[in-house]
């Protein structure tokens, strides 16, 4: 039953673009917990909680928490060791 609630990283692409102004789904991240590198589009996303939770697809650690209020957004990115963004050609 849990898996039907799980989305992939593409689900947060629009929100990331709105917040950061860059396309994030093709970025490469490294999980601070297990050290695995992966593309953001392949991460596990849960969006029906009170906020959005992004987890490592390998060790399931929380990488990112996003809470959106009516006039504010809170971001916790502490689960990432790094995020590599490609510069435009």
């Amino acid at each position, binding site marked *: *039953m*849990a*898996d039907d*609630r*799980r989305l992939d990283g593409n689900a947060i692409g629009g929100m990331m673009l709105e917040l950061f102004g860059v396309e994030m789904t093709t970025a490469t991240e490294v999980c601070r917990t297990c050290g695995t590198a992966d593309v953001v589009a392949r991460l596990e996303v*849960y969006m*029906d*909680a*009170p*906020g959005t*939770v992004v*987890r490592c697809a390998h060790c*399931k650690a*929380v990488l990112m*928490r996003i*809470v959106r*209020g009516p006039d*504010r*957004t*809170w*971001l*916790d990115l502490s689960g990432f060791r790094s995020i590599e963004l490609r510069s435009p050609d």
Partner: protein
Amino acid sequence: MPQISRGFHGRRSEGPSDRIPPGQHLVDDFPVLSAGPTPHTPLDEWTFTIQGGAEPASWTWDEFQALPSEEITTDIHCVTKWSKLDTVWKGVSLDTLLGLVDHDAGYLLAFCDGGYTTNLPLEHVTDGKAWIAYDYDGEALEPEHGGPARLLVPHLYFWKSAKWVRGFRLQDEDEPGFWESNGYHILGDPWLEQRYWGD
């Protein structure tokens, strides 16, 4: 099998104003909200632990079932704006559990399978305000709704009623939990619409 739907669905209704906090709407189903995969801890591996007292206290599933239990009929209110009336639960009162532990703490941090935490002042979980619930509507609590056992603190927003709860750490200070540390209100009183920091 109970009806399951995502958090923002359900038939909308205004409901009785003295039972529906501001900004909420009534649902008939029981939406499921999760921040991660649903754990399925076998009952023979399940324990409930209270840390931070004079001595650590722990119960196996069978020991926990042998504690005095209560049936609770109560309204619940989710911060995603749904409310559900007259839900029926069975569980052990936190008055019972905390009465078995020698402590002088003012707060607790609940911890759960899957890593979720939530913080509560003890004054908000004693005097008949909170339970560890293991039955819902006459049946064993489904894993999707937090089974085998979840916190039930119905006078606060339902994110405080942590699913898959496995214990408390008693503390002198109010340490923000999973949502409270990233935007959600430290207490979460639905009648005061304490949804976010600063509300």
